Structure formats: C-alpha cells, structure tokens
C-alpha cells in the first residue's frame, strides 16, 4: 500500500483536530495545577458535560449556538462549585487529599450525568453544514475547522488574560507562591476558584465542539482526561504554552502511530508519553521549571 501526499496530509489534519482538543484539555489541567499545585482529575468530566449539556439543550429545542454557550457557562459554574464546595473546605488537608477529592468529584459528575442523560451516546449537529473542504487533497470537514479555530481562539484569549490582565497577573503570582501573592493583595481563593471555572469552560468547549464529529456519552470523560493529562505533562505542567504544544504533539503522534503501526496502539501513545515524561523529563518537552508547588 502506498501513501500519497494527500494521505499524509489527511493524517496531519486528523492529528491537528485531535491535538486541538487535547490542547484545550491540557490547558484546563495546567491552569488548575498552576494555581493550586494539584492535578484535577475531574477535568475529563468537564469535557463530557460540555458535549452532553449541549446535546441535552438541543434535545430540549434550544438552538445549537445557545445550547453550546449555555453548556460552557454551566460547566464553568460546575468547575467553580467543585472548588468552592469540595476542595476549599478541605484546603488544609494537603495535596494528595485534594487530588483524591477531585477523583471523587469526577465519579459524582459522571454518575450524575448517567442518571440525568441516560447511558446512550448522543449526537450533536455540525455547527455549520457543508461539504468537506479539500486542502492539498486532504478532506477537512467544516466542524474540524471549528475545532481548530475555537481552540486557537481560546488559546489566544487565555494568553491575553494571562499576560495582560490584572487577573492574569494574579494567576501568575499564585502559580509562583500563594503567600507572595497574598501579601501583594491577591485574593488567592478567588483566583483558585476562577482557575477551576476556566478549566471547566475549556473542557466544556472542547467537549461541545468535538461532539458533532465524535458523538458523546456520559462516559467519554475518562479517556479524554487521560489524553489531556498526558498532553499537559508533555508540555510541562503549569505552562500554558507548553500545554498547547503538548496537545498538538500528542495528536500528531497518535495519528502517526495509526499510520505507521496500527490503530490498536493509538491509545498506547498517550500512556507511553505519560510514562516517558514522568520517568525522563518531568519538566516537559519545553523544559521549563515548575513553580515551587506541592
């Protein structure tokens, strides 16, 4: 079997599409890690909620755009609530206990979704109808363009927030030292809650924008959480630029693994990445140092 350049481009397109989703998920992990030093294992459920709430909105007759926005908003709120109701009261218990609490939250959200929405997969219509676009012979469906554009828009928006706003400055201050941030007047509790809210928004956006391509169900969170975590680790936890790079690298690696080896090993890519990064380069591929967390 010989591969044409169009086929190679098709692999790249597929890798970028998945990579964009992983990047959004990785950003969610990394934001929470930066402001708290913990891994939020409920991140995958934020992804699931985005898709499922949007699908539920559609099923209730709400227009698509409104459903997606409402799903993102509602998940932002869920993110804030996870922090406010589950994590903040246990703040003094320390890192490991907090991580375990996020695992509990993920179970709760997942079973809640199962009871609320049922076990079936749900489909969401494409944001815009239309035939696939041909780019150098590779066919790219309009929804994949939505995925890329929205992921990039979210990344740019986040960069602006992080670099040039007071809230971003406060978030960066918290990522270096909570006490230092406090004594320059940062409301660290609010920053932590907002970072969970943002993580919720990013996860939900990823879940809603990809649902027209992949379908969604109450149990899609775990797999995506794993991928996003691997991408965040690859990029260096706590580093937003690294998270985006890590997401795209993971997407392309997976696509390459299917092209060269077999689809059976696609999921193994993320696991191998996790293990290799943990063992060899805990600071991620960009090699930046973690803040003095944990």
């Amino acid at each position: 079997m010989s591969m044409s350049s169009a086929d190679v481009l098709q692999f790249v397109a597929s890798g970028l599409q998945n990579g964009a989703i992983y990047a959004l998920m990785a950003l969610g992990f990394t934001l929470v890690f930066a402001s708290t030093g913990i891994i939020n294992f409920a991140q995958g459920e934020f992804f699931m909620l985005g898709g499922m709430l949007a699908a539920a909105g559609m099923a209730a007759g709400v227009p698509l755009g409104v459903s997606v926005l409402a799903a993102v908003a509602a998940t932002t709120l869920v993110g804030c609530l996870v922090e406010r109701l589950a994590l903040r009261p246990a703040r003094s218990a320390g890192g490991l206990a907090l991580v375990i609490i996020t695992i509990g939250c993920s179970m709760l959200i997942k079973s809640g979704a199962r009871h609320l929405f049922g076990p079936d997969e749900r489909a969401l219509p494409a944001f815009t109808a239309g035939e696939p676009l041909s780019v150098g012979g590779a066919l790219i469906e309009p929804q994949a363009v939505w995925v890329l554009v929205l992921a990039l828009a979210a990344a740019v928006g986040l960069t602006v927030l992080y670099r040039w706003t007071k809230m971003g400055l406060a978030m960066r201050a918290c990522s270096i030292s909570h006490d230092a941030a406090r004594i320059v007047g940062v409301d660290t509790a609010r920053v932590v809650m907002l970072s969970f809210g943002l993580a919720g928004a990013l996860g939900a956006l990823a879940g809603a924008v990809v649902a027209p391509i992949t379908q969604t169900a109450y149990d899609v969170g775990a797999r995506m959480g794993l991928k996003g975590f691997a991408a965040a680790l690859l990029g260096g936890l706590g580093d937003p630029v690294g998270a985006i790079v890590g997401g795209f690298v993971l997407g392309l690696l997976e696509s390459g693994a299917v092209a060269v080896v077999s689809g059976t090993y696609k999921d193994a890519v993320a696991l191998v990445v996790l293990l290799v990064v943990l063992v060899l380069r805990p600071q991620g591929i960009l090699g930046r140092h973690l803040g003095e967390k944990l």
Partner: protein
Amino acid sequence: MSRSGARWGAALVVAALLAGAVAGCGAKEGGGSDAGSGTTQKEPYRVGVVVSLTGTYAGLGIPEKKAIELQRDAINANGGVNGHPIEVIFEDDATDPAKAAAAASKLIEQDGVLAIIGATGTAQTMAMRAEVQRAGVPQVSMAGGSVITDQLDPLVFQTPWPNRIVVPFVLKAMARKGLTKVAVISDSGGYGKDGHAIIVKEAPAAGVTIVADETFNPGDTDMSSQLTKIRAAKPDAVLMWNAGKEAALIAKGMKQLGMTQPLFGGPGNGRKEFIQGAGDGAEGFRFAAGKILVPSAYGTDTEAYKVATEFIDSYTAKYGESPDIFAGHAYDAFLIVVDALKRIEGDATPAKLRDAIEQTKGLVGVGGTFTYSPQDHNGLTESELVLYRVENGAWVLDEQ
C-alpha cells in the same frame, strides 16, 4: 491498553487516573430482584442476568434488560413456570470483563441462581466461564463471538448467530456483488477480534481479497487515520466488524473523507443509534442479521413470524419503541431457560437445568429455531440470516 507500559512502576499514575474516572460507572443495577405479581406459594426460580448497562455496549444491554423484564412479567402474570414465579436478578458489567466475572460470582454465591443469562459482549461472556464452571451453573450468552461455542463448554449456550455463521454469509454477499477487494476495520474487543479472525480465515473461500486491515479500540472517537489508510488501499468495499457505538464514526468518517465505497457490517450494527449517529453516512450500509428487523422476512405464515410479531407488539406497547436484534437475543435466552425449566421434573437444580437446556429441540424464538445437542450449543444456521440495507434512515431487505 499498552502491554509494554504495564510493567512500569509509574503506571500507578495512569491506574489512578483510570480508576478515578472509570469507577464512576459502578452504579449497580443489581439487587433489583422482583418476583412479579404472582400469587403462587411455591419458591421462586432465581435466574441471574449479566448485561452491559453502561460502557461501550450499553446500547445493546439496555434493550436486552427490557426484553427480559417484559417476558418475566408476562410469565409471572400467567402463574409462573410450573407454579414457580421467576425471579430475575440483574447485574451491570459496565462492558468490563472483570466486572462480568465478579457479577457471575455474586449471582452464584450470594443469590444462588439456577442459571445465568449473559453477558452482552463476547469478552464478558468468556470472562464468566471460570465462575460458572466452578459452580456448575448453566450460562446462556447473548453475544455473537464464535469462540463462545467453538470452545465448547458443557455449561455454556449461545443465542445469537455466531461469527462463524455470519461472516461467511456477509463475505459471500459481497463477492456476489462483485466487491472482491475488501478493506476490513474491526475493533480490538472480544467480538471484533473474534470476527476479524474468521474474516481472515474465510475470505479466500468466499473469493474475497483483503487489501487493508485496520483496527481501533472500543471507545475510540476518531477513525480518520484508519480510514485514510483504507482509502489509500483503494478497496471495492469496506467491511467493519464491531458491536459498539464506534460504528457510526466509521460510517460518518468515510463520508467525510469522500469515500464512496459500499460499507458492510454484521449484526452488531443493527442499532437505531447507529443510524442516528451516522446520519447520511448510514445510507446504503448493508449488514447481516436475523429477521426481527423486518418480520415479513420470516414468511407471514410461519410460527416464527407469529412468535416475533407477538414479541414486537408487546415490547412496542410497553416501551414505545420496537425491539432490536439484541432485545431479540435476550428474548430467546430467557425463552430457552424458561422452556428448559418447564421440562424439569422434581426440584430444579442447576445441573438438571443444564441437561434440560441441552435437550432444547425445535424451539421457535425470534432469532431462529433452536435445537441444541451435546456437540452444538448454538443451534442456528445461515438460513436464519438476511441482508439488510439502510435506506432513508430505516432498515429494508437488500435484494440479492
């Protein structure tokens, strides 16, 4: 999951992640035993059912549970079996072989069931085998993997048409249509692997050449890389073998990649969710399955037609939707157990029940007419199968 990585100590992190997210579906349906409204005084007959109510096969397991509940209520309302009401205990295996084994163990040890119906999937069915062997409890599976009855176990029976019957049927249909260069895409789960092995083995005999052979994992959400490889191989047709929700992504993905080759599949794809999920991509999809989807295929004057339409009518009346082939497999499994219980003399025991099931003869169900023997625990033939095509979002018989 990667075998190479499993040895690493750092895999603990991964395990924690998976445990965290997967454990959420542990919402057991179990314990919900209900003897129905029988007024009999006799001890109820206890039957365990292991189905996938969550996970990849949830779309199969849920109609299976509904069909069994329907039949249980109908039988108990009519005085039960030989005066015994039937008590059914459901367990959810979450499409996880380990949970299926645990569920079987629980049904045997705690509930003392006479027989176990299940599981929904092939790998889950196989995982229960050690448990039923240990206790000598008969098992009637609703999964279509050939391995279930190829590796004959005196205790294990099967209601769907196994891959060894369906695969050659589909391959021959493809060859008849002149589609001899075939690309295969199958899942790496039990049913897909089982089917894949038989496709590879049977293709030469059917006159079919496999030009691309791709796999994916249950739960995968993106097939475009696999399909790109298939597109590059320029096949006449694509044959997919799986039973989960991923099928819709394959049909949709082909359309998005501009692939116009006809798509074929097996009974695992005879689901409404497939048509809904794949949308336009489902149009023209052909698959082999039993006759329940278009009952006129039985021949309107047959006993099978009468049995099937009665089941379809009562199921539709209760649940507001028509049963699919998986509901049919569950109906048949329950029917086989009930029929065998009726033939038992004296106190019912798992051993007596096993013998009675093996003596099932000419029993007309919706998937076919079942005749078991010590050598054959499936009892179905190719004549129970028809080829369907999706047209305007519905199933029609494909003229051959």
